[in-house]
């Protein structure tokens, strides 16, 4: 119940109090009251309404004792009628604004005055309903630090007098970019979790997916909101196939595509269609989702439409210039037009000094060299990549490829 209702509850309280921090604390207090009272008195017929009413009552009760609620309460006192438990009236007031309120909450939690780590913590706390200890476990930072990030975020919002409102139209695209960045960071944190981790880490991909779906639903006209959902659904679809039974990563080319999640692929492709239907110009998330869609719809690695992927990387380089994008483009060209063409693109377009510490540069070069039959050079590159990576499992994988080629095995 809490998980489902917390975002709406906090959003509704924030609209009334104008202060996300106070709203979050009021909602917490109400939850504690519920955990005390419901087991004894039974669950009320309208639990969400009960929480909202209780939160408002608490605000008034705690008026003198809790200085932190001062600002909130001064506004509440003006709004509050004598019959606080007029549940229907309160529910109506909340329901009228619910979508906008949750959207305001999202933009406030991801406000640019906050450092990224605080945006992430506050978003998971207020929008996804995670407890502070869960956030601490999920990001391997411990409960104390997670709590610190959240309380600092609340303070920063107050100190900077950030109002609980939607960004002005001319800033909406940029601010949405900030929101999507937070969601994608949460997704990648979960996706990078390894098999031995606490289950809550991989579950971050689920949190990010749900937040992304929510955002796209609240801003249906924004291509990139749908694009990010598509990218995450299509990437998550590969999750069941990306680790071997011993927990080591399996390369895309070796993955058992029968284990890919068809439901998520279908949803990802539908989200990509919605991004296209907005008529907005494509952005980085939508283009990356289109690339992921090429993989998702290909029967196998060789049968993938590498020409289209190389073209999409070119589009991506246009909207999001990055040496990593050029590197991926070179790999796609190598698979579309042959390894030598890929090596040429790599030499011509990839800013090698910028990627000096990036293990994927020698790994891709090694892959292309192996495909060209230049095994000795390829083995050298795989060794170089193995020396650079900080991921132990990846190192094992790269050393294995170097050894296989060195031993004269089939480079493919």
């Amino acid at each position, binding site marked *: *119940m809490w*998980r*489902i209702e917390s975002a709406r509850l906090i959003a509704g309280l924030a609209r009334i109090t104008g202060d996300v921090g106070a709203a979050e604390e009021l909602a917490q207090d109400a939850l504690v009251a519920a955990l005390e009272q419901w087991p004894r008195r039974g669950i009320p017929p309208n639990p969400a309404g009960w929480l909202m009413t209780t939160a408002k009552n608490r605000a008034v009760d705690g008026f003198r004792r809790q200085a932190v609620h001062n600002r909130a309460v001064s506004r509440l006192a003006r709004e509050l009628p004598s019959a606080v438990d007029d549940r229907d009236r309160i529910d109506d007031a909340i329901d009228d604004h619910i979508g906008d309120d949750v959207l305001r909450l999202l933009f406030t939690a991801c406000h640019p005055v906050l450092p990224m780590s605080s945006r992430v913590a506050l978003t998971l706390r207020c929008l996804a309903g995670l407890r502070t200890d869960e956030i601490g476990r999920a990001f391997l930072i411990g409960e104390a630090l997670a709590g610190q990030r959240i309380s600092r975020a609340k303070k920063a919002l107050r100190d900077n007098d950030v109002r609980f409102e939607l960004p002005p139209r001319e800033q909406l695209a940029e601010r949405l970019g900030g929101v999507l960045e937070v969601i994608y960071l949460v997704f990648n944190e979960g996706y990078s979790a390894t*098999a*031995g981790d606490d*289950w809550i880490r*991989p*579950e971050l991909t*689920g*949190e990010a*997916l*749900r*937040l*992304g*779906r*929510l955002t796209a*639903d*609240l801003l249906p006209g924004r291509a990139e909101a749908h694009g990010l959902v598509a990218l995450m659904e299509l990437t998550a679809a590969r*999750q*069941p196939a990306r*680790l071997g*039974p*011993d*927990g080591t990563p399996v390369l895309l080319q070796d993955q058992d595509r029968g284990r890919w999640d068809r*439901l*998520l692929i279908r*949803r990802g492709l539908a989200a990509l269609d919605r991004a296209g239907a907005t008529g907005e110009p494509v952005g980085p998330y939508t283009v990356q989702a289109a690339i992921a869609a090429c993989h998702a719809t290909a029967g196998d690695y060789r049968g993938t439409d590498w020409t289209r992927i190389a073209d999409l990387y070119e589009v991506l380089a246009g909207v999001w210039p990055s040496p990593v994008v050029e590197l991926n483009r070179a790999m796609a060209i190598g698979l579309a037009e042959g390894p030598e063409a890929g090596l040429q693109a790599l030499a011509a377009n990839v800013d090698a000094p910028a990627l000096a510490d990036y293990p994927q540069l020698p790994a891709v070069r090694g892959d292309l060299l192996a495909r060209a039959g230049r095994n000795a050079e390829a083995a050298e590159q795989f060794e170089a990549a193995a020396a650079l990576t900080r991921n132990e499992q990846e190192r094992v994988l790269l050393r294995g490829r170097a050894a296989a080629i060195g031993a004269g095995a089939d480079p493919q």
Partner: protein
Amino acid sequence: MRYIILLEGTNPAGPPPEGLMAGIMQLGDEATRSGALLDNGGLAPSALGAKVAVAGGELSVVDGPFAESKEMISYAIYDVRSKEEAVEWATRFVRLHHESWPGWEGEATVLKVFGPEDFPPQS
């Protein structure tokens, strides 16, 4: 983690009340918007289906309708963080039937779909 919820029940005579259909739409919208509901669908009466079974050493295919008093009504696939959350959605759905269709009886079965969290790594 993923759960599938199967709803079965016995409908009173007559068409379902309008309020129920509106409520189902609203609840479905809400669950979809929150990102939790991945897929769902209503199920046609078993008269349009069949059953493939093995019993007493024999494989048989029998066309519906089946003799059971309850009919399967719908399925829904949820992506949630806990079993409690899946149960909460199922409860809302069943309560909606209970409150808007006098005489309706039925049950929702909440089943977990195996996921990576169910398979700890072999070391």
